[in-house]
């Protein structure tokens, strides 16, 4: 009996992948996740993240006039911008890898579906904090792109972009990062969601310029449980979803040597990301989505 058919007992249960998979609307998924996460956070002041007032600062050209505190202006005749806690980044760019390998996983969800949930939740969370949010869907090429914007209705465009992504072909990070650098206008946060089955040096070659330009990069490495702890009881011929290469492996290897290899790869990626000031978050698709969001919020808190 699958847990997807089990009635949720708490708010946290609503964030389990199998529950989220039953929600057909990505907007609803993102809203459910964020609201669930935020409920938890209010009970934990340590995070210090809320829509509470933080400070005033003088209006500067380029600021959104919507945030001018007109009450202050009426009393003083000066324009001040009302700032809230967490309202530190101007925009969030979400890059989602839709290579064929991202189609692996499940049930209940594939890595790509989990990446969509994660991306949508991040977008919803950013929009809730009045950040501009954009997204890019890529594999070997850039498949879709939405420039960051905080205008109303922009979130729906991002969610639609995520929702329409499908897994195909291989992965190349140079083209999406090059595209992003071309459109990059100001400092912001970049969330790259992928399984990162690539050469780490090639990845760093694309990420390193972003970091040098002041972008805060966080790498969400989405892996399925079968990738982290594969369970095979007999010999199996494994076919690479991207290249089609087939390799016969023994269960002993997959239960002993392969987990070590995948963790070594994760550690290498984590160390490499740390080396360029980026952050790395390992996401297990069998875990609840709030863990990934908590890690993301912790990351933001550290950067503020």
């Amino acid at each position, binding site marked *: 009996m699958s847990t997807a058919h089990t009635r949720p007992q708490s708010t946290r249960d609503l964030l389990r992948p199998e529950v989220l998979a039953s929600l057909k609307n990505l907007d609803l998924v993102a809203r459910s996740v964020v609201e669930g996460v935020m409920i938890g956070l209010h009970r934990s002041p340590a995070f210090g993240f809320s829509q509470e007032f933080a400070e005033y600062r003088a209006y500067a050209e380029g600021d959104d006039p919507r945030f001018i505190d007109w009450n202050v202006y009426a009393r003083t005749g000066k324009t001040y911008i009302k700032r809230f806690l967490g309202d530190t980044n101007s925009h969030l760019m979400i890059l989602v890898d839709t290579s064929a390998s*991202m189609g692996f996983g499940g049930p209940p969800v594939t*890595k790509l579906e989990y990446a969509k949930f994660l991306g949508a939740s991040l977008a919803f969370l950013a929009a809730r904090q009045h950040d501009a949010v954009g997204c890019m869907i890529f594999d070997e090429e850039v498949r879709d792109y939405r420039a960051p914007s905080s205008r109303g209705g922009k979130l729906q465009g991002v969610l639609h972009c995520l929702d329409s992504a499908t897994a195909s072909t291989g992965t190349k990070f140079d083209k999406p990062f090059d595209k992003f650098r071309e459109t990059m206008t100001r400092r912001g946060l970049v969330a790259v969601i992928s399984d990162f089955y690539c050469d780490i040096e090639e990845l760093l070659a694309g990420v390193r310029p972003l970091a040098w330009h002041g972008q805060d990069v966080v790498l969400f490495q989405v892996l399925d449980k079968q990738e982290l702890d594969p369970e095979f009881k007999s*010999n*199996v011929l494994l076919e690479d*979803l991207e290249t089609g290469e087939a390799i016969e492996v023994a269960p002993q290897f997959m239960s002993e*040597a392969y987990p070590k290899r995948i963790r070594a790869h994760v550690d290498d990626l984590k160390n490499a990301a740390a080396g360029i000031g980026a952050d790395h978050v390992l996401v297990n698709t069998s875990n609840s989505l709030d863990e990934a969001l908590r890690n993301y919020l912790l990351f933001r808190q550290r950067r503020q």
Partner: protein
Amino acid sequence: MSFLAPLFLFGALAIALPFWLHRLQTQSSERKAFSSAMLLESAKQQVHVRRKLKYFFLLALRVAMLALLALAFAKPFFTVSNDSVMATAAGTRLIVVDTSASMGREGVFSQAQGEARRAIDDAPGDALIQVLAADNALRIAGEPGNDKAAQRSVVAGLSVSELHLNYGEMMSAVERIAATLPQPVSLHFISDFQASAMPVRFSDLVPAGVVDLTPHVVGTGEPFNWSVEFLRDGAEGLDVGVSGAGDTERIADMELSINGVVVETLGLSQTGQQTLRFDAPVYEPGENRVEVVINADDDLQIDNNWYHVVSNEPPATIPLITLNSGGLPLTYLSAALESAGDYVVEPLLAGDFDARVLSRYAWVVVDDIGLIDPQLEQALNDFLLGGGNILTFSGERAAAMEVLPLTGHRHSSSSVRTQADEFLSVGQIDVRHPALAQTEGWPSVNVTRSMPVVVQDEDNVLIRLENNEPFLIERRMGVGRLLLLTGNLDNRWSDLPVRPVFVSFIIEAARYLSGINEISKTYTAGASLPLSLTGNTSGQVVDPDGNTILSLADTTREQQVSLDKTGFYEVYTPQGQAVIAANIDPLESDLRRLTQDVLDRWQNTTGGEALAVAVAAGAEETKTVELWHWALLLLAIVVIAESILGNVHLTAQRA
């Protein structure tokens, strides 16, 4: 290692089955999609090796299981030497010295002894040395040992015999001896290698259990030899076969002596085989010792003599126990026996018969078995048991009895025929019997009266009438024989006494009952003289040197006497004295040697194949250890291991 049932080893071909199954299994892996093979690349070879290694162990167990099953059914075994055959590195050096008569050539045997001593000296220090003497038998000259001085003294004690050696028989004896000695056994054979000593089959020369043969040829050179090959006693004189072998003409003379007195001499000047005749000599009464001697300085002296016995005995007396010293039986019997010139019939009245005189005769005739009274019956019974023989007939007295004396025969249901016009012919004759083999004309015999008896188990019916009634019966009683004719020597019973077949029958029966046909007066040296055939079971034999051969105890039980010397033997039995002549085997006079090719082939054959043959021949002296039960035990262990490992694989696949 050998196998009792090697055909079962073909069952090991089933090993191909697990190989085939394992090949299939390695090809049937489940195919699954995986996110990336990036991290699997380097693991591919390692996985393959481990899987192969694991499956290889299972495959090895299955192969071992089938192989052990086939092995167990094939019943492997190997042989190990038992305690009596101690294998030593040096083994045994077997030194066989030819001591046959041909080695008596001047200087040859001393040369052979020198070769034997050299073979002893050359032997490895720890080798066991065994010296054997070979003539008509292989004789152990001394105890085997490592002491070379002792073995040399054994060789010094050897002497030439007057016997013949056959190499095939010798090698057969060598096989038996070699099997009891520490292996390997090397054979040093010292001989003049006569071609006449070769066996019929060359394979008889290959001794099993001997790893190599080293021939030592002695007596080289071109010998010249005179020899007497035979002597025939004819009416016109004595014919003597003489052979002169050699390239050069030699002059010699040949003497004929009778009872030690030279009676005639002939000259010899022609080589090759020839027959010379001595004029009819005058023999003394009784047995005459005839000796032919060639006086010549040839290489082999022992074959220059030939010994012969000529019997000039008076006719033997055959006692006829009868009730009527002037009756028809005496007439017919005397006429038949005396026609041969060797017998004289002496009628003895049954009433006056002294049983003590029976021991003088080899056989007696009783003209009517019914005349035997109990006292005479006892005496004749003892006579038969002691080796005497009896020829007897039926008669009026026997016809009146229900049970015949001496034999215990009863009349058969058919009554005694008394009508003269009713006669029967002879139906069946055992012509293989010595008393009947030389007789002809039995079908012409008409039997008008007979006394049919009930045949008993110990009877041998030699003649049956046409109505299947027994007519002539032989019965062995002790070592004696009794011939019973159910008719009578009376022409009122049958016309047998007046038929020619009667004479030949009586003479052949006389020879058979007296044992004349089985006694030879001339033997070849080395032959056995059967004492029992001389007329009694005990006796004494004096060899040509005047020494008695038999011990006192053996005089009553020894049945065979070996005549190892040439010359005249005197045989004493209760029936009297007999003289036997023993001569050298003419084959020993042929001094031609084996060709070098034959000798090389003999030596080479003994070296190679003999080793393998030795294993089989030595089987009686080795212990066979069967391994099939160990194979079964190992099989059980392998089956358990295979089951466990196979179950592990099965469980993994099901999961």
